[in-house]
Structure formats: structure tokens, C-alpha cells
């Protein structure tokens, strides 16, 4: 492993580290990147199996975050650069990332903007 790869390995949890080693034994021809993908998917598989058939949370922060990033990148790409709008959007992205519901996030921006 090179330095970058070693860092990534070191940042794994103990549980993931032993899973990493197991994968390496099962698939000796896989490189570090491939093993890391397998480790990542291990969590995903558990997620999928344990999560019941819930409706999609309309305040799913990860999805909302992606929407905001998407619209922001779009506006930038077409040259609509409005700093105050972008700042507000960035703030919104930040709050949603931290798990705030849209409504609450929007109120917080109001507080922040009127400080």
C-alpha cells in the first residue's frame, strides 16, 4: 500500500479492518481500491436488508443536499452568479448536511441573515 492507501486503511474501524484483511485473503488479486469498494458495499448491503419498505423521507437530507448542489452547479455553469443567493444556498446545504429539516433550515438562514 502507498501512503494514501495506508491512511485510508488506518481510518477504518477495527471491524472494517478485519473485514479488509478477510477480503484480501479471499481475493488475492484485488487491489486496495477494489477492496475498499467491497468494504463500503458491505455496509450498504446491511442497510438495504435491515431497512424496511419505508416511504421515502421527503426531508431526506442526502437527497436534498444533492438537489441543492445540482441547482447551484447549474446556475454557475450558465453564468448566473448571485452571491447572496449562493450564500443562502450554501448555508442551506450546510444545514441540511447536518440533518436539519428544510423548514427549520430556512428559518435558521433568516436568523443568520438578519444578525
Amino acid at each position: 500500500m502507498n501512503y494514501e492507501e495506508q491512511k485510508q486503511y488506518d481510518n477504518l474501524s477495527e471491524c472494517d479492518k478485519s473485514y479488509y484483511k478477510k477480503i484480501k485473503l479471499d481475493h488475492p488479486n484485488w487491489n486496495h481500491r477494489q477492496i475498499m469498494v467491497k468494504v463500503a458495499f458491505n455496509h450498504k448491503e446491511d442497510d438495504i436488508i435491515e431497512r424496511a419498505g419505508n416511504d421515502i423521507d421527503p426531508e431526506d437530507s442526502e437527497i436534498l443536499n444533492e438537489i441543492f448542489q445540482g441547482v447551484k452547479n447549474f446556475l454557475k455553469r450558465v453564468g448566473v452568479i448571485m452571491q447572496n443567493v449562493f450564500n443562502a444556498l450554501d448555508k442551506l446545504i450546510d444545514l441540511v448536511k447536518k440533518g436539519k429539516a428544510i423548514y427549520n433550515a430556512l428559518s435558521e438562514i433568516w436568523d443568520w441573515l438578519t444578525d
Partner: protein
Amino acid sequence: MENKERRFLIDRIFDKIFQLGNVSKEDQETVNHTLNKELLEKPFRVAVIGQAGVGKSTTLNAVFGLENYTSNLAEGTKEVVEKIYPIRDGFNLSIYDMPGLNNDIAKDIEYEKLYRQILPWCDVIVYVVNAHSRDFGEDCRILKEIVLPICNENKVRENLILAVNKIDTIGESINPYDPELKWDAFKNEPTEKLKIAIKKKLSDIIDKLIDENLIGANESLEKHQVVFYSAVFNYNLRDFILAITKAGKRGWIWPATVGLERVGQWSDAKLSKD
């Protein structure tokens, strides 16, 4: 159009931002105009590729709520049909239902040309497979040798989603007579025994994708581009929607317009709280 009460999620968010951010009328106009142009000027294009029997229709219904709409047939040959669904307020969804490869080598040549023609123009490209397919090796080959190269050449690899459907039937394909390997339709979740079988199957699929350099390699798919779900039971559609949202430059448009609740059941609830 500008005065009509706007129903898109993104419009309502921007309304709030404008309010709170004290944005000038002029600037508001600019943003709205630019946004509307992008949302309405062309339809949101989705190509769906898959063999008969993988569940393309049920997938489209579950993810896009198509059973709530009637389409206008835009154009089509016997093999590929473009269906345009007017969703709301001028926003249109366009679905290209593409045949899968591997049925007949004579047709494959023709279909590959269709893929080259159509895929580069699509905002999202969904390649649907069956979780219990015996032919997954062949699907990998098709992705590796045909679909992925076309996407890479046209810089639309990020628009691709590998949709692994029917995870609910993994147990039945192992032993159709074992009731413990059947999906619990009442609770809408797998039984304990089925969980183990699904976990093993998903793990095998991931191994195969890694071996084939379809994930974890250069110019391959990202983790979020592989989704495991059951269209029939609406199971894990969340990952599917996330994959659409992250797809290429325009994937965000779908959830930004229709929101995250099931199309047709979208309510104004939370955003209109004041």
C-alpha cells in the same frame, strides 16, 4: 407562467430564499427565468434498458409514478419507443424503452446502433437486471463491452444506473418451496432466513462487478450508481432516487420538480408552514 402558483419543489425553496435573502426583483426574475428554461425547455430524458421480464415497467411505475399519467407517443420504431409524459406545469418526462441485447445476434447489431444514437442524449440511463438472473455474467459483458464504452465516449457515464431489481425473489430462486425464503409481503421485509440469502447474493453480485472492473476501477461506476431494490414492493427506492438525483448534470431536476413524495401524492405540507 410566472404568475401561476409554482408547484415545483425547487421553486418553493427559491421563493423562501428570495424572501429571506432579500433578493432584488430583478435578480429573482433572472434566477427564475434561467431555472424555468432549464426545467421546461427540454424534457427530462430517461433511457431504460433491459431484457423482457426484468421488470422495466414496474420499475418505471415505482420510481416515476408513471401509472398516474398517460403518455403521448412521440415517435418510435417497433424496437424503441419514446413516450412523453406531461408531469405538471410544462415539465415533461421522456422515457426511451430500449430492448435488451443478447436475444439474437442479428438484432444486437441493430440495437447497439440505437444505443449509440439515443444514450448520449439522456439525462439518466437505467440498465435493469434481475437479482436472481443466471445470465448476470452476460449482462456484465454487455455493460463492459457496449454500454459503458458508449457512455464513456459521450461523457455520460455519470448518468448511468445499474438497477438490480427483484431482490424479493432471491429466496424463491434458491428454493421455491421453502416458505421461509419468501418475502414477507405483510410486513414488507425479508424473513430472517431470506436476509441471509439476500446478503449472500448481493455480495456475490458486488464481487462479480469488481472482478469485471465495472466498479472500483478507472472509468467505472461509482458506488451510488448500483442500486438494489424491489419495484413490486417499493423496497429501497430511496437509493434509486438518490442515484437519479446524482446522475450527471441534470439528474437533480427530477426530484427538484416533483419532490420526494410519491408523484400524485405530493402535498404542500411542510414548505407552506409559515
